[in-house]
């Protein structure tokens, strides 16, 4: 299914699309939905006893350097850790580029400590580098019933490059007018 705007008004600077060129919501692979370049992943999993407090503290301490840490992954549009149900469960939700499992093996060999640090407080989390990692994710993932993204054809790298281009363009025009 696809949930999206039904009018074609351009007053909000949205790019022009016709119905025939609008991307369709498809599967992101093993689980999850994908629209254009952007997929959603929603995981709900039980936390270990005391895990909620530990995870909250880890997230608080790491907030300051999150941009720098995530810059190297460069495919995550956003992610949230939501602790709920009286500290017994975690909802982890992210919008990311591409298909479900393309880079999980790379995460496993390149940044296992980083990912395990944030997920080891989840019950029975096997470790991102283990053979059971993908099955564990799929077991706790709930595919969304509706998925919308404002710029479905734009990946994280496209957006970052676009930001640099707009800035450079403005500087160029400013310099030409000064």
């Amino acid at each position, binding site marked *: 299914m696809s949930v999206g705007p039904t009018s074609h008004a351009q007053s909000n600077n949205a790019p022009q699309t016709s119905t025939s060129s609008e991307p369709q919501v498809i599967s992101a692979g093993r689980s999850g939905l994908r629209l254009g*370049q952007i997929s959603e992943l929603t995981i709900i999993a039980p936390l270990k006893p005391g895990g909620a407090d530990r995870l909250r503290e880890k997230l608080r301490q790491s907030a300051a350097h999150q941009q720098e840490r995530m810059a*190297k*992954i*460069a495919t995550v549009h956003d992610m949230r850790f939501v602790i709920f149900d009286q500290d017994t469960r975690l909802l982890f939700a992210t919008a990311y*580029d*591409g298909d479900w499992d*393309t*880079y999980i*093996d*790379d*995460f*496993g*060999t*390149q*940044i296992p400590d980083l990912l395990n640090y944030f997920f080891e407080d989840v019950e029975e989390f096997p470790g991102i*580098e283990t*053979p059971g990692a993908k099955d564990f994710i799929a077991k706790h993932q709930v595919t969304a019933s509706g998925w919308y993204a404002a710029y479905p054809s734009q*990946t994280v*790298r*496209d957006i*970052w*490059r676009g930001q640099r281009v707009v800035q450079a363009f403005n500087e160029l025009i400013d310099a030409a007018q000064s």
Partner: protein
Amino acid sequence: MAARAHHLGDRGESAAEHWEAPFGTDQIHVAFALFASNEIALDTAREAAKQAYHEIGGISVQYHMDVGMMPDGRTHLGFRDGISNPYIDGSPFPPAFGHEGPVKSGEFLFGYPNESGQIMEGPSPAPLGHNGSYLSLRKLHICAAAYRRYVQEKATASLSAERIGAKMVGRWPSGTPLALSPEEDDTRLSEDESRINVFSYADDPKGFKCPISAHVRRAFPRDSLQDQVVDVNIHRLLRRSTVYGPALTKGVLEDDGHDRGIIFAGICTSLIRQYEFIKTEWLNGGNFVGLSTEQDPVTGNKDGEHTFTIPAKPLRHRLKEVPEFSITRGGEYFFIPSLTALRWLAEQAGQGPSDL
């Protein structure tokens, strides 16, 4: 492979519904390849194979191809191919000269640890899978005339046709890598096996020497992806590709109607993580290097932008409307059993191993 064709980017003329029979059907059960270093040896082997074939019932040849390197050792685009291959950890052969370290044997052989430390298992039971591999085989028609026309049409005073081709491939036709000799070909390099494949991209992050979008840089990024979380060693492929069809006469710019191209053969233990990853992540798009939907100039299809970016100072060149130079005529995934697996199979049938 037909079931994966759309995912692999085989669209339009390359779509599975257009594949040459029996590719894309369920009529391919076994493939048999004979390689020899000269015609006489090949004929001898071919005769032995024919003899055995006539003694076996219940099997019929569906498809036959004569393949082989052309006399000048080049492909139909005029480039030397197959220079770079992974060096397999534990190989009894000395390493070919290259910049990178050995890759775990489990990336290419079942029954051994791979780069993730896991033992890859092929088909079961173990005697069948052990020491075997998977093979991605693809028959790719190469549009030699279209390539020649395109590089000539796009040539300018500062960017010759030969240079455009080299920028698209990442090597000069002789095999000299742009990373070592960006301005012109250098036979001192191409004729020296100890130098032709020893290079890094670390001093060329923006691709001024070898474009980021060039074919060899995409297919094997070496050390050029340091700014992202990716392990190049888990995405390697052992290639045993070859060439088919008559050469297009030198200088001819119109297609002569002959089928010619590459038989691509890539060996690995995880088709998804190795062959398919390279094809879908590194060849069929450009997002991994911030180039959005730009495709590999040699293998790309008509999806996406079909532009090719040549980084340059002060301004990059963007070649537009790059045609398809490669049309997929068919492909299939195979399991390659080891010699011991072949003997085991023969024993299962109650026939002795004969003269394997």
